[in-house]
């Protein structure tokens, strides 16, 4: 198994919660798992709450509406109220459904998102485990959510659900190729699979960010945004839950808490994708202004975590903005975009990056003398 850095969150938690050490030996690991597990769950839920509220407001403003206004100032508590309502709903399982699979499916989908959070660095030390194969791990675990969705589609015993799940499978398998190419390009530039190393490599002035590393990196950046949208099944790639064709796709038969788990998982995955874009291309938790990044102590941590959340929410907004602008594309268009546009462009960009890295290793534009040695 991967070695962990000494600063990893798990060890900090042991220091922070001394009573854990007083527990009997055999409880150490379960308690540790429980406590560390709580953190991603909390972050996912909070991000889900904020994300849903944001989505409603953004869509409302783009359509000259007000959005939720009743609960809390400017309707801020509306999502919470909806969550409580969903919890109170009757738990319906269709008679002909495959019961165990039907119950397991949302859990599998949520676990997929939950596992993604483990490898996201919110700061140099605030990461559950800094795996030395971080990117590889993310690419692998991102597919678990799909398993949950295919389970849901199959277990529902409903043709809409099944069609939605099949589309989802086809879509995710197709778009894993461009996503993989983009990740490989980033790895070529950074020289490391570890998430923390990737971010550390971008320290300094914002010209150090990977998006500015070579002239084709922005192509990779855009390709990654498009491919991540497709992996997230967000509009305009929301074919798996196309309301006008498939009722609501794989979660047609789901209601109440199970439905809301799917929902939270979706918003959690959106956040992870946004954070990943920031980490891989835009300096992660660094603000791009050297003297802000060099602050130590709790203030520095706050700035860095804030920077990552700020960037992630900016991309969350971009996802919403795209969703409320573009219509859903056709299935063939989706595959055309993947295999005939993103894959070739990604490949060319990857090859150019590889050569660039061979000829001009180091700090990208900085090595050309544009901004000599600033802030490193």
């Amino acid at each position: 198994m991967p070695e962990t850095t000494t600063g990893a969150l798990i060890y900090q938690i042991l220091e922070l919660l001394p009573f854990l050490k007083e527990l009997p030996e055999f409880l150490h690991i379960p308690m540790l798992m429980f406590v560390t597990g709580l953190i991603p769950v909390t972050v996912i839920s909070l991000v889900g709450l904020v994300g849903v509220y944001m989505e409603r407001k953004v869509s409302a403003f783009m359509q000259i509406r007000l959005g939720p206004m009743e609960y809390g100032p400017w309707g801020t508590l509306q999502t919470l109220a909806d969550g409580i309502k969903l919890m109170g709903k009757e738990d319906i399982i269709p008679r002909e459904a495959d019961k165990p699979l039907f119950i397991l499916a949302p859990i599998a989908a949520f676990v997929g998102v939950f596992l993604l959070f483990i490898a996201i660095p919110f700061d140099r030390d605030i990461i559950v485990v800094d795996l030395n194969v971080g990117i590889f791990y993310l690419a692998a675990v991102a597919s678990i959510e799909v398993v949950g969705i295919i389970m849901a589609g199959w277990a529902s015993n409903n043709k809409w659900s099944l069609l939605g799940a099949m589309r989802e499978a086809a879509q995710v398998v197709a778009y894993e190729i461009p996503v993989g190419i983009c990740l490989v390009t980033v790895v070529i530039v950074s020289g490391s699979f570890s998430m923390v190393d990737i971010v550390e490599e971008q320290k300094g002035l914002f010209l150090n960010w990977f998006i500015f590393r070579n002239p084709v990196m922005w192509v990779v950046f855009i390709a990654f945004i498009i491919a991540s949208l497709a992996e997230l099944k967000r509009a305009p790639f929301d074919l798996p839950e196309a309301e006008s064709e498939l009722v609501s796709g794989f979660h047609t038969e789901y209601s109440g808490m199970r439905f809301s788990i799917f929902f939270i998982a979706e918003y959690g995955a959106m956040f992870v994708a946004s954070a990943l874009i920031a980490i891989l291309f835009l300096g992660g938790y660094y603000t791009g202004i050297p003297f802000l990044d060099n602050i130590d102590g709790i203030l520095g941590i706050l700035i860095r975590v804030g920077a990552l959340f700020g960037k992630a929410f900016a991309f969350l907004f971009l996802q919403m903005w795209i969703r409320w602008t573009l219509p859903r594309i056709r299935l063939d268009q989706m595959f055309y975009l993947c295999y005939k546009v993103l894959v070739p462009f990604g490949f060319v960009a990857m090859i150019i990056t590889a050569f660039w890295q061979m000829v001009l290793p180091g700090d990208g534009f900085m090595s050309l003398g544009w901004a000599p040695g600033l802030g490193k």
Partner: protein
Amino acid sequence: MGTYFREIYKVSKSIVTGMGITWRYFVNAKKRIVTIQYPHEKAKIPSRHRGTHFLETEKCILCYQCSNACPVDCIYIEGSRDGTVSGSHQGKGASLTRFSIDYGLCIYCNLCCEPCPTECIHMGQQFNLVSTRRDEMMNNLLTDKVYNEADHKFVVGKRAEIDHLAEEKKRIKAEKAKAAAAAKKAAAAKKAAEEAAAGDKPEAKEAGAAKPAAKAEKPAAPAKPAAEAKPAAKPKTDSAPKAEGAAKPAPAKPKADPAPKPDVKAEEGAKPAAPKAPPAKPAPEEKKEADKPVTESKESAKPGDDKKKEDDKGSSSGPSEEEKKS
């Protein structure tokens, strides 16, 4: 190959354009938002909106014109013109025990408001009539509340009193009619006194109308006021052209100024015009303006009425200026 890149360029361009449009909407959202937070704030309702009715009870003369006009017969009126019913709402020369509209039936057609001779029933602004029970759809226009059990008990209880009042009136009228008949015989004997009899004619007509009234109880009530209303209405229509000028005090002055016609006649013409002017229904479009003069006219028809309003003063100032000039 060329088309491939051209297509990519076209798609990218259209996406950027579309995102620009939504961005502009998002940024300018505050200015553009059209949502009205309904229960908290309400849209402006046009002044001619046909909502639920409201009744100016003090002007109602209990003529049943509105309930007769209603195509679905959903207006229920009870009351008496023959005297004061205790505890009832007072109209103009009438006591109303009941004036309710069943909004389960009403089609908001405005037909009840049109024939009302005193323009006292109007379509209002209220529009959300929600109730869980059918009988809550009955509105009591006298109190502007739901017509409830207590109201109904009151109405039923007062029916005897109304009948009693009607009989009293019948008896008195019958006596009067006898007296009038006797007077008529006497008048017929004196051929020379025909001119004087002309003055009594309206009275005689009333008496004549009262006789059929005695036979048929209810229809009598509307018939009689109608008879009264007709002579009242005629002068109104006659004076209408003058009244239009008088209703708006401002144009009345220029009209009066350049008309230094035969002095005495102008004065005489102007003086009767002043009290008559308000009663005439001016242009029906100006309902709000029209409402006030109507009330005044009915009240000012009685000489020496203490209620004099601004419009009245305005119209009376017209002739006074004329007098000065003449």
